[in-house]
């Protein structure tokens, strides 16, 4: 593509052209208005004066006859006011007035005429233009009343010329300004485009340029940067999750393989059977892990938000407590639950119940110190316009420094991994909270763990 053609296609040019056209139209409109208000109105004013004078003279003729008008015309002709008069006999000979002879007049009784006028200005004679009104008086006398409009014409010409110059200047300034403005604007757009390209090319830490002017483009860049920040952290988390998944899936698969190989070597039917049963158990656990990962991903992606409904907190708590109470009693402990009536959250009953069962599972597993029985409380209350569901135990708790990472996938503080579990329980809870625009807060129950689900309160209507 050739240079000028390419220029025609750029947004810079188009913006500048548009800017220029708009600018030119507004300047032209403005100047046109000024011209109308000066030159044109002045001309109209003159015409009006002439017509008034003609009317007055005609009236005089009617009242006082030829002598009356003759007198007035002679008197006025003597004044050097730029006014022209001519009173002529029906045949056309001059009777009075400061015009030497009758200018060529069109046929008809009355009309506006313009004719050249020689004016003695000191030593020089100047060619001026006169504008006059020609009328037939009763009795065949002809009357011409006019004005020397040379200065008016000149004034109009000056104004016109000024307007042309002003337009030309406006066009130049407009073109320049438009080019400058659009180039400045588009350069920043180009910078954003360029930044996106480098990010797409793989430089995930790249960011949009921000000038600090806090204008629309800056705000756009800031919003994009925030988005990139989130994408980057999500991608980081994804990478970590993938490697954790790989690790946590490799371990059971390795176990299965070892077990099956040993069984095959042994050649005993009982071993085969044991290995197969073990394989079924292990794959069940693997599937559980997968299902948990999928649930977390789904909750975090917010896909389930469409299916959210008003959920009664007291009912939710009562149902889950009902499911877990016998379990706690079986271990010799207690699970006590309570919730204020009428509390509602906007949520998914299944996911909220699943989050609570995960917390209760943890409380049952880790909620008792050696030799003690688990004492678990499950409560729901309204705190500062938030619905807070708390699961508290009296176990070892989670050290403050670990509270941030226990919600990450596959993180288990129980390094020996003596208790069953996949390290996904709290990740799901935190995912479910994200879906509900709530948060999971882990606190010290002195002693023990207090897991608080802080959710926005839902009110009907």
């Amino acid at each position: 593509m050739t240079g000028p053609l390419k220029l025609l296609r750029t947004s810079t040019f188009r913006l500048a052209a548009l800017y220029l056209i708009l600018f030119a139209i507004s300047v032209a409109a403005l100047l046109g208005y000024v011209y109308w208000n000066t030159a044109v109105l002045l001309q109209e004013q003159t015409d009006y004066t002439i017509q008034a004078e003609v009317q007055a003279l005609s009236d005089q003729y009617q009242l006082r006859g030829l002598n009356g008008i003759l007198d007035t015309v002679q008197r006025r002709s003597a004044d050097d006011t730029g006014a022209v008069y001519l009173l002529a006999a029906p045949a056309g000979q001059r009777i009075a007035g400061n015009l030497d002879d009758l200018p060529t007049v069109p046929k008809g009784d009355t009309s506006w005429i313009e004719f050249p006028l020689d004016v003695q200005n000191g030593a020089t004679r100047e060619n001026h233009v006169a504008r006059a009104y020609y009328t037939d008086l009763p009795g065949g006398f002809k009357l011409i009343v006019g004005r020397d409009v040379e200065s008016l014409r000149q004034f109009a010409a000056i104004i016109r010329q000024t307007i042309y110059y002003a337009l030309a200047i406006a066009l130049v300034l407009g073109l320049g300004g438009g080019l400058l403005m659009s180039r400045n604007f588009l350069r920043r757009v180009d910078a954003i485009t360029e930044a996106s390209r480098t990010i797409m090319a793989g430089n995930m830490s790249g960011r949009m340029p921000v000038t600090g002017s806090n204008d629309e483009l800056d705000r756009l860049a800031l919003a994009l940067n925030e988005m990139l920040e989130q994408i980057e952290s999500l991608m980081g988390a994804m990478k970590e999750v993938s490697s954790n998944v790989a690790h946590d899936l490799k371990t059971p698969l390795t176990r299965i393989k070892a077990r099956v190989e040993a069984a095959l070597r042994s050649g005993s039917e009982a071993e085969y059977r044991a290995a197969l049963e073990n394989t079924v158990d292990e794959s069940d656990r693997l599937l559980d892990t997968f299902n948990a990962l999928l649930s977390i991903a789904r909750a975090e992606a917010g896909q389930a938000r469409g299916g959210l409904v008003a959920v009664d907190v007291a009912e939710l708590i009562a149902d889950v407590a009902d499911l877990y109470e016998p379990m706690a009693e079986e271990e010799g402990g207690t699970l006590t639950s309570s919730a204020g009536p009428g509390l509602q959250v906007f949520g998914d009953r299944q996911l909220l119940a699943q989050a609570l069962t995960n917390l209760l599972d943890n409380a049952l597993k880790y909620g008792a110190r050696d030799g003690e029985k688990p004492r678990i409380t499950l409560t729901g209350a309204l705190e500062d316009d938030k619905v807070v569901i708390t699961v508290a135990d009296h176990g070892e708790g989670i050290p403050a420094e670990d509270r941030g990472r226990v919600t990450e996938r596959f993180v288990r503080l129980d390094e020996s991994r003596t208790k069953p579990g996949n390290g996904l329980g709290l990740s799901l809870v935190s995912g479910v909270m994200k879906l509900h625009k709530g948060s999971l807060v882990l606190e010290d129950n002195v002693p023990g763990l207090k897991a608080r689900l802080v959710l926005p309160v839902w009110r009907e209507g």
Partner: protein
Amino acid sequence: MQVSELDSHVWTASPARQAMRILVIEDDREAASWLVKGLAEAGHIADHAADGEEGLGLALEAVHDVLIVDRMLPKVDGLTIIRKLRDANIQTPVLILSALADVDERVKGLRAGGDDYLGKPYAFAELIARVENLGSRVKDAPQSTRLKAADLEIDLLTRTVTRAGKPILLQPREFKLLEYLVRNAGHIVTRTMLLENVWDYHFDPQTNVIDVHISRLRAKIDKGHDEPILQTVRGAGYMIRDK
């Protein structure tokens, strides 16, 4: 207390139950062949259709007791099959099998006219329990206010339970649990089925909370009786003896 434990492998091979004719509509031939084989071993007659069109044709003959329908099928998808059957007023119970196992997908399946929904991959014991549950559902159509299994009786109006004439006091949830088990007397009920139908939870808690509820219920209804009525079927679930 004597706890009865049956082995699911032995149990499913038992010829005592009524054989059902089951249609499997599944495009994965290997999965389908394992499924047909398993159903045959459980004493049922299974037909197989490998695509939606063939499956719909067979299902429209209305000769089957239960349909097992995969959702994603070539030619006609599973939900469309179910809708067309229901439009033709064929009420054969349908178990939907699908890799789409989310709660909302499940709701979609049930809205289309499916009777039960099982996510893939599934345990065969879970599937057979659900299929047999569906197959027996048609028969107890008239709504009775009394349920009976062996010498156990439930009055749904007064919400009282008696065994061999002696009243048994149950908590509301225990009552609901027993009611569901007795409605399916003679059939295996899995833990997942209990969670879904008694608690309305469509997820599996990590700990086996159901077992504790069952053992409490068992303590109440089997205590002092020589023959336990609530049996554990190893590897599958629980069953209330009906005779």
